[in-house]
């Protein structure tokens, strides 16, 4: 069978994402899966900044940025406007935000969007810190990661809290579809976007995107880092429908968390400072808890 011709992506090249950017890859896959009849909103963040450097835009579909916190509220407005015009079947609406915009700054508007039941897919690009402004910690930064506002040093091991359970928070709103995905498995991501857009009502998709700048790993290893995160159990990949887990990506071969941590310089202090082994054990415990909770093995 002849493979189809490769078309240029709906997120055009020439955008200013760093080499090896996981978020740019995720955005490209999501837009190509959604198709051209889509209206997209974006919160402030890396995605907004690298794709729309004045006076250019990388988006080939209607795209709007308003504020940091209101990506979901703007998308809700667009969806209501389409309904008022009787054109809701002509375009799909996707709201986008980074992990900071989703878990910290925009969680109020997001919760409102879920509550009112708008037919919008919300995509959270989870690169685990505020990368655009210089790697400050967010609610989705993992335990013991060194960022500029949770630095590792003499009295600190890095970020004190674990990732906020955003998929569960979204699912608690009793919305029809919640899923997590990763750029490590792009086919899976593509499938989930298509499935989400086929469902009426509010949807939430959280995509784990390695950031070569903030995580300080080799840009060529973006996919490997994302896959290792899944294979250690630190990032569970699952789908929830009507609040219940309906499918999980099983771990093929369980790897110790060291395999994931050693690829990234944001965890370098765990291997250098005396006492790091105990902290790595605590991270291993988080991975083991995930494996038990979601049934990943």
């Amino acid at each position, binding site marked *: 069978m002849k493979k189809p011709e490769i078309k240029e992506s709906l997120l*055009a090249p*020439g955008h200013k994402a760093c080499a090896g*950017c996981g978020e740019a890859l995720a955005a490209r896959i999501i837009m190509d899966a959604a198709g051209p009849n889509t209206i997209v909103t974006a919160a402030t963040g890396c995605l907004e900044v690298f794709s*729309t450097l004045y*006076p250019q*835009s990388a988006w080939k579909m209607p795209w709007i940025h308003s504020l940091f916190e209101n990506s979901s509220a703007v998308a809700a407005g667009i969806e209501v406007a389409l309904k008022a015009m009787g054109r809701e079947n002509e375009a799909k609406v996707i709201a986008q935000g980074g992990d900071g915009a989703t878990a910290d700054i925009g969680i109020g508007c997001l919760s409102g969007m879920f509550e009112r039941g708008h037919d919008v897919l919300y995509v959270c690009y989870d690169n685990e810190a505020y990368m655009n402004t210089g790697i400050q910690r967010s609610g989705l930064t993992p335990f013991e990661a060194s960022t500029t506002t949770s630095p590792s040093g003499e009295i600190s091991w890095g970020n004190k809290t674990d990732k906020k359970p955003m998929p569960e928070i979204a699912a608690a709103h009793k919305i029809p579809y919640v899923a997590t995905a990763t750029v490590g498995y792009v086919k899976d991501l593509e499938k989930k976007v298509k499935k989400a857009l086929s469902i009426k009502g509010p949807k939430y998709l959280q995509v784990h995107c390695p950031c070569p700048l903030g995580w300080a790993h080799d840009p060529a290893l973006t996919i490997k880092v994302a896959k290792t995160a899944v294979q250690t159990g630190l990032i569970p990949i699952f789908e929830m429908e009507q609040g219940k887990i309906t499918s999980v990506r099983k771990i093929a071969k369980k790897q110790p968390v060291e395999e994931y941590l050693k690829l990234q310089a944001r965890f370098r202090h765990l291997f250098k400072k005396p006492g790091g082994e105990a902290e790595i054990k605590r991270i291993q415990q988080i991975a083991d808890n995930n494996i038990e909770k979601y049934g990943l093995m």
Partner: protein
Amino acid sequence: MAKPEGVVAKPGSSKKYKTGSWRTKKPVFKHDKCTDCRICVMVCPDGVIFGADKEYHADMDFCKGCGICAEECPVNDIEMVLEVR
């Protein structure tokens, strides 16, 4: 009529800016062991790998030289070489 606020840009106008100048290493597609799996096409963050029938290439105007395609190629048919300009 009220003056429109904000900025309106043409779709896909980012292509006026050629990110290829950022590159230090370039991917060389050897067209030797290619199995036509298209993993390189799928994993390129910029979506600039084109071609068909085991003959793929990166658009050098935009390739940033991240090396993900070479790293992920299952048959090592892509090699990153230092670019001399």
